[in-house]
């Protein structure tokens, strides 16, 4: 009896299974043809970062927020004579950003760098296909300055500093001189009085 029940059970379960697979044969596919067809990304997707250098004031807040230290920022102060313009939300730019590098091999896409930015110049894009054969190619440099410009800015600033230091020193020297002179005069002036 068990024998016939086994036969019946196996045949009926096979037919049930085949019915299911046949039904699925005519169902539309749930997959998409990826590189040709793409799903719309969610509203708050987190992908590759982008920095709009026109707005960056070089405040280093994003680099400090980064939990994996993948952002490297280096800045040089601008000269008082140079006008760097204003950011789109009206902040005055005072620093040359000589280096702004994000290493996407390290980046964990946590978006923590996006929120502290005072000018909202660092944000997530919708680019997520940027694999590379070489790890170094994942280091993205956002600085808009050319290497020569960077050298120039640094030299400018160094010169300016030197100039300032020299002026200061001169001033200090002058002051010291003046003070000395004054002191001498004083003593000369006082001396005769005493004599009187």
């Amino acid at each position, binding site marked *: 009896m068990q*024998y016939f029940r*086994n*036969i019946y059970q196996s045949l009926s379960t*096979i037919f049930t*299974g*085949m019915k*299911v*697979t*046949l039904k*699925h*044969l*005519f*169902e*539309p*596919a*749930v*997959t998409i*043809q990826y590189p040709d067809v793409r799903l719309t990304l969610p509203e708050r997707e987190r992908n590759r970062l982008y920095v709009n250098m026109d707005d960056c004031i070089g405040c280093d807040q994003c680099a400090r927020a980064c939990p994996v230290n993948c952002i490297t920022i280096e800045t040089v102060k601008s000269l008082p004579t140079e006008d760097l313009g204003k950011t789109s939300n009206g902040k005055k730019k005072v620093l040359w950003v000589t280096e702004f590098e994000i290493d996407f091999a390290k980046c964990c896409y946590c978006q923590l760098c996006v929120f502290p930015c005072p000018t909202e110049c660092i944000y997530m894009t919708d680019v997520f296909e940027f694999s590379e054969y070489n790890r170094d190619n994942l280091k993205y440099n956002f600085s808009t300055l050319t290497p020569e410009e960077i050298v120039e800015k640094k030299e400018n600033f160094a010169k300016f500093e030197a100039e300032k230091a020299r002026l200061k020193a001169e001033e200090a020297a002058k002051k010291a001189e003046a003070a000395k002179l004054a002191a001498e005069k004083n003593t000369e002036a006082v001396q005769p009085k005493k004599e009187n």
Partner: protein
Amino acid sequence: MIYDFLFELTGSEFLAGLIQSLLPLFLFILPFALFAVWWERKISAHMQDRLGPMRVGWHGWLQTIADILKLLQKEDIVPRDVDKPLFNLAPVLVFMGSYAVFAAIPFSGAFIGSNIDLGLFYIVAVSGIVVASILMAGWASNNKYSLLGAMRSAAQIISYEIPTMIVVVTIVMITGTLNLYTLSEMQTGYFWNWMIFGGPGFGVDKFLFIPLMIIAFFILYISTLAEVNRTPFDIPEAESELVAGYHTEYSGMKFAMFFLAEYANMFAVSAIVSAVFFGGYQSPFGYLGNTLGIEWLIPIEQFFWFTAKGLFFIFVQMWLRWTLPRLRVDQLMALCWKYLIPISFVNLLIVGLITVL
């Protein structure tokens, strides 16, 4: 017959025979294998709600040609410790075994490789070469997985030949012939003359045969499915247990030979099932050539029906493959020895009694 036509054309028996023997390979098996691999991938994909290959040609129909080109270019790796002559011989033998089966299969009324009286018997016998060569491949590979797969395959094919043979004997008792051409010719006319509906003639026995024939058909279908090592009987190449079974060590064109042999085998057993139970190349509703009075159209129609039936059974094989999980070794043996063989034997006895009465 194609042979006579070729004989007249070339004037040489040897050339006519050679061309005739090569025809099914180049006109049928190779295109079929290319098509079937693609078809299987598409069917499996759609059954899993995917799309499958889509990039090479329309819906990826050129995918297999690209794959074959890749396989042809691949390095032919022969591991150091294999038994080289046997290792190289095995894929050829596997393909030869499955190709030899096609000699006795009637593709249409005008084309049968060799119209021998022992057709069915020849097919069952010659497919034994496949067992030997699979075992050869497994043993020569000098790899534990290959050997295990080959042993399983041998055990499986030998066991499942018994129910196949018993069903064949059942058919022989009714029809009195082992010749597949005669067998197909007997089932001419309309579909109620097919063996699954009791064969030609309108006696009481025809209606008695119908349930018995359906049982016989199921047994033949299941056991031939097991003989070609397809899921749910694919334990010889169970990839989750045995890497790839007996063709683990093969690469490039030798692997392609195993692949080709598998698909050729699939069609061969489907052709046998359709020839034995479903009228072979016979149309289910008469021929267009007869109604129009065009003589030469009939063999072409017959070829169409033969291919259509074969492809339908292959579709069912693929359908089963993507439905059922793989059987365990003990379940496999239990199915054969405890269920298929007793049932087919009882079936044989009843059919014998009816034919005697």
